[in-house]
C-alpha cells in the first residue's frame, strides 16, 4: 500500500507545541482559498499551486501532516510523493508542530557578526529550550511548555539592521541579546 510507505517517510510526531494547533480538517473557507490559488495557473498546470496550498495548510494547522499531503495531492491531481518531495525540500515547510510562537533567528554572516548566536542562546535560556535536540533533519527546538520554539534561519535579508528575527509572521530588527527578554515579554 502506497500510503504506508508515505506514512513512514513523513510521519509527524507530537511536540510540546502540538496542543496549540487544531488537527487537520478542511473547511469550506480553506477549500475556497485553495481553489482561488489553483486558478492562478493554467488548468493543465495545477501542480504549480503546490506551494500556495502548503502555505495555506501550514498557516492554518502549524505544520504539514501526512493527511495534509494527501489532501494537497488530491486537490492538484498528482501523486502524494510529488507533494512530499516539495515538503521535504524547503526549509520553510515544517512537518512537526512548532511552539505557539515560532522564533526564527538569522544566523548568516552579518547577523552573526551582530550577535545573533548570542541572541539565540539568550532566547533559549529564557524560554527553557534545549537546542541540542535540534538537528539538520529536525531543526526546530520547542520549549517544554510548548509556547516557544526556535530555529536558525539563513539570511532574512535585513543585514543592515542585524541581528534580526521573525516571530511567527512578525519581523523584528536590531534585536541584540539584551533585548531578548523584552521580545518574549511582548508575546507572552
Amino acid at each position, binding site marked *: 500500500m502506497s500510503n504506508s510507505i508515505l506514512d513512514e517517510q513523513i510521519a509527524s510526531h507530537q511536540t510540546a507545541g502540538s496542543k496549540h494547533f487544531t488537527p487537520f480538517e478542511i473547511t469550506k473557507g480553506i477549500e475556497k482559498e485553495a481553489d482561488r490559488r489553483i486558478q492562478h495557473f493554467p488548468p493543465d498546470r495545477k501542480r504549480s499551486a503546490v506551494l500556495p496550498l502548503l502555505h495555506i495548510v501550514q498557516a492554518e494547522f502549524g505544520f504539514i501532516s501526512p493527511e495534509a499531503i494527501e489532501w494537497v495531492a488530491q486537490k492538484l491531481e498528482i501523486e502524494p510523493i510529488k507533494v512530499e518531495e516539495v515538503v521535504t525540500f524547503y526549509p520553510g515547510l515544517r512537518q512537526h508542530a512548532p511552539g505557539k510562537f515560532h522564533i526564527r533567528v538569522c544566523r548568516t554572516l552579518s547577523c552573526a*557578526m551582530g550577535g545573533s548566536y548570542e541572541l539565540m542562546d539568550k532566547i533559549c535560556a529564557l524560554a527553557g529550550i534545549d537546542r541540542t535536540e535540534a538537528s539538520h533533519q529536525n531543526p526546530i527546538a520547542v520549549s517544554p511548555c510548548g509556547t516557544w520554539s526556535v530555529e536558525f534561519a539563513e539570511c532574512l535579508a*535585513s543585514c543592515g539592521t542585524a541581528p534580526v528575527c*521573525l516571530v511567527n509572521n512578525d519581523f523584528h530588527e536590531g534585536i541584540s541579546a539584551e533585548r531578548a527578554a523584552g521580545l518574549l515579554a511582548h508575546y507572552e
Partner: protein
Amino acid sequence: MAKVTYLKGKEPHPREMRLIFRNIDRKGWDPSIKKYLADGGYKDLKKAFKMKPEEITDEVKKSGLRGRGGAGFPTGVKWGFIPPNNQKPVYLICNGDESEPGTFKDRYIVHQDPHQLLEGMVISCFAVGARVAYIYLREEFPEAAWIVEEAIAEAKKAGFLGKNILGTKFDCEFHVHRGAGAYICGEETGLIESLEGKRPYPRIKPPYFPAAMGLYMCPTIVNNVETLCHVKHIIGMGGENYARIGTPRNTGTRILCVSGDVQRPGYYEIEVGKMTMGELLNDVCGGPLEGRKFKAVIPGGSSAKVLRCTDKFNVASLPETEAREIDFVEIPLDFDTLAACGSMAGSGGVIVMDDSRKMSWVLNNINEFYAHESCGQCTPCREGSTWMKKITDRLVAGKATPADLETLKSIAYQIDGRTICAFGEACAWPVESMVDKFRDELLAETSEQNEEAPHNPEQAAQQRYLSSV
C-alpha cells in the same frame, strides 16, 4: 511634484541619488495607490502604452540597464532573446526571492513602494507581450505578500491591471507566489521549477534559457525587483537620458546594501561608478567602528570574492583604462571595475569586516550557509559544500592541519565551473579567495600536530588499539 522629506534619522546621505528609493522612509508615505497616484504614479505606464512594445525594449536597450539581481546582464538584451514568431504564451516573473546574504534592497521596495514595482512590471509585460506575470516573493517576507496582493487589487480596481488596461485592449494578470525559504529559488531556472510545483533544481543552460524555454517551456523573462522598477524610470525619462546617469556601460543608479562593521550600515542608492569604495565606507557609512580598522570587504553578496583592504588592484583589463594600479579605497563601485579587481558587484550587498574578525570564523559562517542551501542536484556542489564546511569547522576548532587549506582549495576548484547553475561558483569563490588572500592568518590557526590526531571517535579508538598491540 511635491518636495520629498524623510523620516527623522532616515534621511538619505547627500551623496545619494534617490530614484528607486525615492519613497523609502518618506514622511507621510504609505504603500497605498492613493499616495502613489498623488505623487504622479502610473504616468509612465500611460506613456508606455503610447509606444510600440519594440520601442520600449529599444529604450531599455539604449538605457544600458544591467540586471540588479547579481549577474549584471543587460536587461534589454535579455528581453530580445524571446524567439521571433513565437506562438506560445509569454510569462514575466519578478524575482523577489532576495536571498543573497548581505542584500536587503528589494525588501524595502516590496514593503514600502509596491506600486512602483507593479508599474514597472506592467510596462515590461507590455514590452515582452506577457499576459500573466508572477511575483515570486521569499517566504520570509509574509507581510510583503499581503502588501503586494493588496496593491495588485488596488491597481486592478484603478484599471492599471486586469482586462483591457486603460482601454488599450491589453490584458495582464499578476499573481503573488511565495517561496519557502530556499536560496536556490533566486536562481532563475530554479525559480521556474519551483513555480511549476517541483523541487527547485536549476535547469542546464543551454538549452534551457528561460527567454526561449522557461515556465511551462514557454518564453519567460525573469527580472529582479529593482531591475523592473528601473524600467519605469527609463520610460519616464527616456533611455538616453537614463544612460547619462552613472558611467558608460554602468548606467543608472543602484542600491548598495552595507552591513557589518561600519558606523552607519544601511541602504544607499548611488549613481553606478560615481562613488569609490573609500567614499562609500568612510564618508557615507561613517568609517570603521571606534578604534578599529577595515580588514576585508565582500562587495557583492556573500558569494562574491572577498577583497583585502590593504591590497592594490590592477585594473588594466578595463577598456579605455591605462594600465595602472589602484588602492582599495579608489575602486569605483560599478560592475566592470569590481570584476577587474577579481570580484563582482553582484547583488550590491557590501559586507564589511574589521580587524576584530577572524577570517576562519567568517569563512566557516559562509560555508555553513552554502552547505545548507545547496539543492543537492549536482554531486560536486552537494558533497563539496559540506566537505568545505567540515574542514572550516575543524579550522575554527583548532583541529585543522596546514594541508587542510590545500584540500579546501582543491575542493573549491573541483566545484567551480562543474555544476549546472552558478551556485557552484557561489560556494567555491568565497573559499578560493579567503584561502588565497588570508593564507597566513588561516595557516596560523592550523597545526602540523593535528595530522597525527584522530578526526573522530572511531579513529581514536582504532589508534588506541593499534598503539596497544
